[in-house]
C-alpha cells in the first residue's frame, strides 16, 4: 500500500464509539489509508454524498441511524455512491445477522473483535490495494 505516485484509498469509518474509530483509524493510517470518520448512519450519508470514498466500514448498532438502515439508504441512492464498497463490522455473529447485512447491501461482514492486522488485510482487498 501507499506506493509512491499511487493515490491513497479513502476509507470512511462509521462507529458511535470514539475509541473504536480510533482503533480502526490507527491501524488503517499506519497501512497508508486516508481515514475519515462518522458517528452514525446519518452523518455517514452526508459524508458519502458530499465526498469521494473508496470504502465505508460501518458498525451495526448506532444511535439515530443504524448500520442496516445506512446500507439500505446508500444502495437506494440515485447516484454513483450506491455502488460504494462497504464492510460491515458487528458484534452480532448469528447467521440471520449476516443474511440481513447481505440483503441490506454489505459487500463483506466481519464479527468483532477484529484485530488490526485482519482489518488492514480486508480493507486492502476491498479497496483493491492488495498486491
Amino acid at each position, binding site marked *: 500500500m501507499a506506493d509512491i505516485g499511487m493515490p491513497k484509498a479513502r476509507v470512511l469509518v462509521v462507529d*458511535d*464509539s*470514539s*475509541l*473504536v*474509530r*480510533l*482503533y*480502526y*483509524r*490507527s491501524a488503517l*493510517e*499506519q497501512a497508508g489509508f486516508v481515514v475519515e*470518520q462518522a458517528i452514525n448512519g446519518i452523518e455517514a450519508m452526508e459524508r458519502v454524498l458530499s465526498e469521494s470514498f473508496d470504502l465505508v466500514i460501518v458498525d451495526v*448498532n448506532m444511535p439515530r441511524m443504524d448500520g442496516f438502515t445506512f446500507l439500505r439508504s446508500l444502495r437506494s441512492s440515485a447516484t454513483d455512491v450506491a455502488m460504494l464498497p462497504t464492510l460491515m*463490522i458487528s*458484534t*452480532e455473529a448469528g447467521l440471520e445477522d449476516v443474511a440481513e447485512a447481505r440483503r441490506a447491501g454489505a459487500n463483506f461482514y466481519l464479527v*468483532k*473483535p*477484529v*484485530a488490526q492486522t485482519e482489518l488492514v488485510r480486508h480493507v486492502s482487498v476491498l479497496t483493491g490495494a492488495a498486491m
Partner: protein
Amino acid sequence: MDDAKGGASYAVHISPEDVQRFCEFLYRRTGLSFTEGKRYFIDRRLEDRIAATGSSSFQAYFSLLRADADHEIEHLINSFTVNETYFYREEHQLRCMTSSLLDVIASHKEPGGTVRIWSVPCSTGEEPYSIALWLMENWPQVDSYNIEIVGSDIDTRALKAAAEGIYGDRALMRLSPDLIDRYFRFVAEGRHQIDDGLRNSIEFTRVNLIDSRDMALHRDFDLIFCRNVLIYFDDASRRQAAENLYGCLRPGGYICLGHSESMSRISPLFRVARFPDAIVYQRPETDHG
C-alpha cells in the same frame, strides 16, 4: 497524583519573577531544571509546599526554603519528583486490567455492552489516556465493547490541562517512539499533544472524593483506578472516600489502589482479589458476599 485532596485550596499569588527566582534556586541547590513551560507543574508543587508549611506568601515560603528550615529543601524535592506522573505508570496494573480484570468483567456482559472505567484522581490526564492507549494496544476485545473512560479530579486547572492533552518529553518517557508517533502531534520543542480522537474518547469531570453528592453523579463503573490519593486523607475522610467509591462501582467491579495503599486497612466493604499482575479490590456481587 495528589490532586484530589479534599482539603482547602490555597490561593497564593506566584508571579513569573517568583517562578524564575525559584527555578534558579532549585537548579543551584538540586540540579533539577524546570523552565517556564512547566509553569503549571511548578505552581502546583509550590502551592502545596506553601500550604504545608503554613507560609502566608511566596516570599515567606522562599525565605524559609533558603534557610532550609525543617529540611524544607528535601520536602520540596520530594514533591517535585515523587508526584510527577507519566504515561504507563504502574504498568503492572494496566497489564492486570487487560490480562485478567476486563476478561472477567466482559464475561458478564453481552458483546457490544458498555464497560465503564474511571481514573480518579486523573490529575493532568496521563492515567486515563494511558488506559485508552493500553487498551488499544493490548486488549484484543477492545472493539467489541462500548468502552467509556472517565477522568476526574478536584482541581479544575488539572482537568483543563488534561482536556488539552499537551505533554512534555518526561511524561512520555515510558512510551515507545512508535506509540508517540501514532498518537501524539508535535506542537513545540519537547511538547506533544495527544491525538484528537483520544482526547474525545475521555470524559473529564470534577469530583471531590469525600463529597457524597459529587460521587453520586459517578455511577456504574466496572473498574476504578484510585491511586496514591487515599494516603493523603485522615482516617475518617479515608473511610468516607472508600464508602463513596464502593457506591460508584457496579457489584463485582474492581478498584486499583497505589502500590503502598491497602483497602483492607481502610474499609471492610471490599474483598481482596489476587491476580498474577496485581492485587486489587472488588465490590462483592452481593452486599453480603
